[in-house]
């Protein structure tokens, strides 16, 4: 199981808002697929999937604010 974590997005950026999930729980994802779109200031940022597998869980919904370093999703890569 691989944790998808909100990475550093820049100096002083401590959080971002989830604006769109490209996949639903249970769906197959491939490495580098756009997994989730985040918004900060006047920018959106697509976070790619770190590996191929099945999206087995998401911890936050669209509209939620998340902090850098927080787990956003779990991918079953077994």
């Amino acid at each position, binding site marked *: 199981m691989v944790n998808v974590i909100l990475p550093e997005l820049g100096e002083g950026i401590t959080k971002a808002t989830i604006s769109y999930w490209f996949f639903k729980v249970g769906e197959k994802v491939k490495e*580098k697929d756009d997994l989730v779109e985040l*918004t900060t200031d*006047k920018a959106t940022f697509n976070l790619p999937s770190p590996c191929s597998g099945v999206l087995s869980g998401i911890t936050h919904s669209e509209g939620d604010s998340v902090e850098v370093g927080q787990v956003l999703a779990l991918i079953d890569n077994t």
Partner: protein
Amino acid sequence: MDLKIIDLGLVDYLEAWDIQKDTLAKVINNDLDSALILCRHYPVVTLGRGASQESLRFGNEWIRARGVKLYNVERGGDATYHGPGQLTVYPLLNLGYFKKDIHWFLRELESLIISSLADLNLPVSRVEGFTGAWIGNKKIASIGIAIKHWVTYHGLSINIKKDDLANFGLIRPCGMDIKVTSLEEELGRQVSVEEARSSLLNKFSGRFGNN
């Protein structure tokens, strides 16, 4: 770094959007270093991810009946209007070559607008917390970007012709009840899109063209 300049002239939003996405894929795949798309759009309102129905002052059909197209797009920010009297610029840059910092890039875009318009003897500034370029409490340029694999797309627009400002009345620009202005209104003379284009292109090439 090679900055490919793609000048589309007056173009439909969807056509430019497709070209943006094609160019984005090339930059992501390293088939192209970077690109700068410059264009003017036929009247269109775009709704960024921060927009809601409150962002529009009128219903969708009423807006479309005025000949203004309406699209939801994947950039950050709220509602904005684009028209033929604006210069719209889409930088497709791999921030991995510069700095992987979203807010830094937004401030860089503001700086490029500010220095470009300073060349035209127009003092504009940034307002903390309100991304864009301002003359007092009036907005002259808007910014809204998207980033994929640390490559930027979407971008900025500068209001040039004063007769193209009326359609901003269709929306609440950036979701707020703010005033917008144009280069012509502020300089009190006719300004060609070419003047602003030349200045902005010069600044962009200097900042992002040769790293």
